């Protein structure tokens, strides 16, 4: 007998409660639990309120991006800003509540009618989609289109960029994808049933309460098989959102216009205000910053904040500063301490690093307390459910490091005079380079000599730091990195970082190679829990990671965002750590 959506609904409600009680403020000011009312421009106003609330239509909303997207195909993207931006032309099953503050972490139905129901064993989920949702060409969205969209993910030779959770969660993991399996009307994935035009039934290998979060990725946005053009779909995805593609020059510019088939009543989290949206790609970052300040463009699409020159300009000019926001962007910056590389096989050697590291110089390397981030003492970040503040290694009380304690740990691990090890970092990331250098200097004070090994960012995780074989063969004891939650639950943030089952041969995120039964069992236990009980697991996981000293947290990263005065409905969507792109408008 199916159980009503106690798991799902309780999870959503508990999320809000836990976020309110456990999360620290998002940014320098206290975040409200729900966006209410508007605000005139002031520093950090967009973190907790809607700045320039408006229903005015018209105008052209202009984004600039310093790079190309990995893909504008909703099923083939993993970039944070594209996950945000793609909601302008796609409706996934779920999305995040459009509001400033911590309510922006709440998951709400988008294409789905509700949060779904699950069977008593938690392995079967049933969702219904809203009827009569139309594509830009007027055809009606079918449940089978959602299934097909998910099926596309299975062929990584065509869809290589996006998340791969379905293969790990659903039954039938060996399904080759519809491009190779052309039989069965392209509905060959047995893990999803489509009993009628508006119903989807998911069959999971094991209970997974976070499934709605996974379905909030744009890869659950429907794709009719007849419209799919494979790797060319990125050139013109069929829109179910408020805007549709008008023209797209690869790597140069995308122009979108309002989708006349979009019904705002069925998609209350989004708005259709601007008459046109343009995004210019591969624009010099300094140019973007200056165009923002001069009002020539409206949004820096990447959403990671302005560059150093503009930061100084904004923070020193009261007029500019009133249009700036300084939110936490959801990323944690770490140094992974590989538990499989000597001498870090010894806990005390790892703890020596935790104590010796100068958190202040690390913070400065990342840009300082305003644009770099807050000194971190935990792995989990404040914008993720399950965050709980604690400080095992005096990161907050002794930010310059505790050399005495570090030396004690070195003695306990049999290395009283220190040791030599290699540290990997991305040499095309200036802040990471600076942080590695800063760590090298601070560890040298206790005799730990780091040899810095720089690697290109594009292959850092696939071929170097994230490839355990390479790490072992090259004695890389420390590796710089960072992590942002795929979804704002403790599972979404911590599993890939610390679950022993998550260690991969390439693209490994559990770079410290933690395989602690305590942590593994906590994750296993979490799959059988829901609501507050489940969310209470995450601080335990975080605490155990720090007890194991597998990760040296550096900063909870922040960004300095700028919103030109003519931008309306501007506020930081907490999950994305950047402005909510689906509600913006411009003053004419």
């Amino acid at each position, binding site marked *: 007998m199916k159980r009503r959506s106690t798991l799902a609904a309780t999870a959503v409600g508990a999320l809000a409660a836990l976020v309110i009680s456990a999360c620290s403020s998002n940014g320098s000011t206290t975040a409200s639990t729900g966006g209410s009312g508007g605000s005139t421009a002031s520093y950090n106003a967009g973190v907790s309120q809607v700045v320039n609330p408006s229903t005015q239509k018209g105008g052209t909303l202009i984004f600039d991006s310093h790079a190309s997207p990995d893909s504008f195909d909703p099923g083939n993207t993993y970039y944070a800003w594209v996950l945000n931006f793609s909601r302008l032309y796609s409706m996934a099953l779920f999305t995040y509540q459009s509001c400033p503050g911590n309510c922006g972490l709440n998951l709400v139905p988008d294409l789905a009618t509700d949060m779904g129901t699950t069977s008593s064993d938690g392995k079967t989920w049933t969702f219904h989609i809203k009827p009569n949702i139309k594509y830009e060409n007027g055809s009606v969205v079918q449940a089978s289109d959602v299934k097909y969209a998910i099926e596309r993910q299975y062929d990584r030779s065509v869809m290589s960029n996006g998340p791969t959770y379905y293969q790990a969660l659903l039954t039938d993991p060996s399904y080759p994808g519809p491009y190779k399996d052309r039989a069965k009307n392209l509905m060959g994935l047995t893990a999803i049933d489509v009993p009628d035009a508006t119903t989807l039934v998911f069959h999971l290998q094991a209970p997974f309460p976070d499934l709605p979060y996974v379905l909030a990725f744009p890869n659950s946005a429907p794709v009719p098989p007849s419209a799919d053009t494979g790797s060319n779909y990125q050139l013109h995805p069929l829109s179910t959102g408020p805007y549709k593609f008008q023209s797209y020059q690869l790597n140069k510019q995308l122009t979108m216009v309002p989708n006349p088939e979009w019904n705002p009543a069925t998609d209350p989290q989004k708005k259709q205000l601007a008459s046109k949206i343009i995004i210019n790609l591969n624009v010099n970052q300094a140019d973007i910053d*200056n165009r923002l300040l001069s009002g020539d463009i409206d949004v820096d699409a990447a959403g990671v904040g302005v560059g150093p020159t503009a930061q100084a300009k904004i923070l020193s000019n009261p007029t500019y500063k009133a249009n700036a926001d300084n939110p936490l962007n959801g990323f944690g910056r770490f140094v992974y301490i590989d538990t499989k590389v000597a001498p870090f096989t010894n806990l005390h050697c790892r703890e020596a690093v935790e104590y010796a590291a100068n958190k202040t110089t690390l913070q400065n390397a990342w840009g300082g307390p305003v644009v770099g981030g807050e000194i971190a003492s935990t792995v989990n970040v404040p914008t993720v459910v399950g965050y709980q503040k604690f400080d095992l290694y005096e990161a907050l009380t002794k930010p310059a490091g505790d050399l005495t304690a570090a030396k004690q740990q070195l003695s306990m691990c049999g290395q009283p005079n220190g040791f030599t090890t290699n540290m990997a970092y991305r040499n095309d990331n200036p802040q990471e380079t600076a942080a590695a250098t800063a760590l090298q200097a601070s560890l040298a004070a206790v005799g730990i000599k780091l040899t810095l090994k720089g690697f290109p960012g594009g292959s850092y995780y696939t071929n170097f730091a994230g490839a355990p074989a390479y790490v072992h063969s090259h004695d890389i004891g420390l590796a710089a990195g960072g992590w942002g939650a795929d979804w704002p639950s403790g599972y979404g943030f911590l599993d890939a970082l610390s679950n022993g089952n998550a260690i991969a041969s390439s693209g490994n995120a559990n770079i410290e190679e933690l395989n602690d039964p305590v942590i593994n069992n906590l994750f296993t236990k979490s799959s059988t829990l829901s609501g507050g009980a489940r969310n209470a697991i995450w601080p335990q996981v975080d605490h155990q990671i720090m007890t194991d000293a597998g990760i040296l947290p550096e900063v909870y990263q922040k960004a300095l965002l700028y919103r030109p005065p003519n931008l309306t409905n501007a506020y930081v969507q907490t999950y994305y750590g950047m402005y909510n792109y689906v509600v913006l408008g411009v003053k004419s």
Partner: protein
Amino acid sequence: MIFFIIRRLIMTVFLLLVVSMLTFAIFFLVPRLGGETPYELAAQYVGRTPIPSEIHAVEIKLGLDAPIWLQYGRYVKGIVLGVHYNNGTDVSYCPFPCFGFSFRNDQPVWPQMTSDIPVTVSLALGAAVLWLIGGVAVGVLSALRKGTFFDRLSMGVALAGVSLPVFFTGLIALYLFSYRWSLFPNVHYVGITTNPVQWARNLILPWITLAFLYAALYARITRAGMLETMGEDYIRTARAKGLPERKVILKHGLRATLTPIVTIFGMDLGLLLGGAILTESVFSLPGLGQFTILAIQNHDLPEIMGVVMLAAFFIVIANLIVDILYTVIDPRVRI
């Protein structure tokens, strides 16, 4: 002349073949000799946390599992005969010249490059006109007014132009004329067919920035050449014959100086047509220079191959044109 051009075009083909072999060897063979396996190479193009079977699938799709010589053969065959490509839902045909498909976005390389060519050509040709006219004129005047205030000032400015890097002058130009004084706000490329006025207006700053560097060089070369030429006996003879001074300078003096200028102009323009990387980066112009940077940053090997081949083609053709121009400038030259 015709046979000369045909011979040079045939040599161009062979030269491009050699360039393709060398470039292919650098980016495909050398890493393999250094220990990188095709599997490791393919892993860069599979996104996050791939499992081995997914990496193998991409390895096969990108043709990285084949021997190097076969990969190169397929590449050349694609350029000459075109190639069929499976995009998932059906098989596309990439006609001659097919420079393969991007490892990152699965799109054919040649159309991406051809869409960038107008931007680079606009930038290069416009700047070339400015630097040629400006640089040669200043060089001639400086030579004729050797030792005067004008000569010293112009050569001082020329020294600055040669010394200051393009990204510096470009950023200064943007700061002053675009951001601060808003004389040229929001500089971005507009196609000449879309709006010729906007096209020119948005390129003025990049033209001047690029031309400043080259004009300085050309002014110094022209001045040196003119000083040497104007001291020749035939110049004195021309004056003694009563020719107007303008004719003496332009027809006899400058003409003799032009040969080395034309030589370096051909090289410079050919190089720029392959992508004015720094200028395009500073001004965010989506030309071949920016395409090159992105290809390198993304480690997109087909795009790198394509842009190197195209740049080599431009240089070779530019030099061919220069050699033809020699016969016009100097009738003693026969080809």
